């Protein structure tokens, strides 16, 4: 079989490569690229730092909370952190434009401080209880009720939600 017809057909079809950087390159919806962090949805369980195979995620102590650091240059885009983050604080975005000058290599960090909170009932310092996690823990409760429980520490929350008269709730 002759290759010439295939060659001519390919020639007439024009280039099949993408015109990037002068044109758009294909970015599928499910693409695992730069990881985004939402401090509002972080429960400070730190499972992401434990699970990250590249050691790209670290937590550092600050006076008022813990600082989340994700080094994009260490990240291998495996998406394990997004898989195991129960409170949905980590998401893979489709943004793969990570090229940068050498001088900025230490700035390519996802950084945010997650603040400790005060329990609305006993006033002790407590870890935050983000909404997505609480909605999973207390399905069927109203939004107001969840907000109220969210502001408490685990001990007060337990006391609050325990069955009052030995019956089941």
């Amino acid at each position: 079989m002759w290759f010439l017809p295939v060659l001519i057909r390919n020639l007439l079809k024009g280039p099949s490569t993408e015109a990037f950087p002068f044109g758009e390159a294909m970015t599928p919806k499910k693409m695992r690229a730069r990881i985004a962090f939402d401090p509002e949805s972080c429960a400070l369980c730190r499972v992401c730092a434990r699970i990250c195979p590249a050691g790209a995620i670290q937590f550092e102590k600050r006076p008022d909370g813990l600082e989340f650091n994700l080094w994009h240059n260490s990240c291998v885009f495996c998406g394990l952190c997004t898989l195991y983050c129960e409170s949905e604080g980590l998401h893979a975005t489709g943004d793969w434009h990570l090229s940068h000058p050498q001088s900025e290599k230490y700035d390519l960090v996802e950084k945010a401080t997650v603040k400790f909170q005060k329990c609305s009932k006993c006033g002790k310092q407590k870890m935050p209880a983000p909404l997505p996690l609480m909605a999973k823990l207390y399905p069927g409760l109203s939004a107001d009720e969840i907000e109220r429980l969210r502001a408490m520490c685990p001990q007060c929350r337990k006391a609050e939600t325990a069955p009052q008269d030995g019956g089941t709730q």
Partner: protein
Amino acid sequence: MSTYKIPVGPLHVALEEPMFFKVEVEGETVVGLDITAGHAHRGIEYLVAKRNIHQNIVLTERICSLCSNSHPFSYCMALERIAGIVVPERVEYLRVVADEIKRIASHLFNVAITAHLVGFDSLFMHVMEIREIMQDTKESIFGNRMDLGANCIGGVRYDLDAEGRGYLLAQLDKLKAPLAEVRALYETNGSFLRRTKGVGVLPRAEAIRLGLVGPVARASGVDYDVRRKAPYVVYDKLSFDVQTLPDGDVWSRTMIRLREAIESIRIIEQCMRDMPEGPTTIDKTPEIPAGESIAKSEAPRGELIYYLRTDGSDKPERLKWRVPSYNNWKGLQVMLTGAKVADIALVVGSIDPCISCTER
């Protein structure tokens, strides 16, 4: 005639992977061969003992790029065997789909490289362009062109809804016609046949003696495929033909890969048809007790064996794998003896060597 020793490698013998050959030649004919390995050793077997079981799914996936799904797949099977986890049936189908998509892409890559090594670069480009259909599929379904991240302990990390199934089937349909055309080209094109027929011959008896596996063994007439001989996941429920050819030359090995790519399309289509509804992971956190197990799978290059020993902690005590290229490069001794110097790269490329897997 006097003999010479010429160095081939360690860089860019066939692929961009390091392997060093000391080739003894008589005139233009190869009479002896000395293989030196170890240029791509990264100490991954040590590393896996320092990482927890979840991290190791990612680490094993990055041992090699072309068979990147076979490694975490076998690793997860070994872990699940120790923990006695039975995965849902839908997971088994989805794992087959991921593995077969990788097989198509891997085989097409080697077939393209073979065209490049005989100097047929326009065919190389053409096949790579066809392969791009599979690359786009992987990127759209899994989120990455090479490292699918399809497996987790007790399940898979992706799901195919009606839209996903439709997309996958459409992509496979798009692949069929060009693949059939390429197969006809490789089967009948004079330029290609003259460079590959009767080159690097590995007789059946030698393939058995040296314990060769995968497409290399099947091209020498050895009917051995783990998917058929020791079925794992749902391969026993799927209908596919194990491809064999009698000649054992470079051409046969190329044809086996093209035929297997076509078979893989059939397998994925059956999976799409038969896949039951259900969960994509087990619904509890896996607990891995102390124990040891072995898992086997058919990677694109042949039989891949994982041995895992755990001690009840979250880190494996020992993880060892034997990759198909380890067996197959022994076959080079036979294939290259009597070959011409100009065919060395072609013959080396025809066993589809994966140096990063083998030396890790």
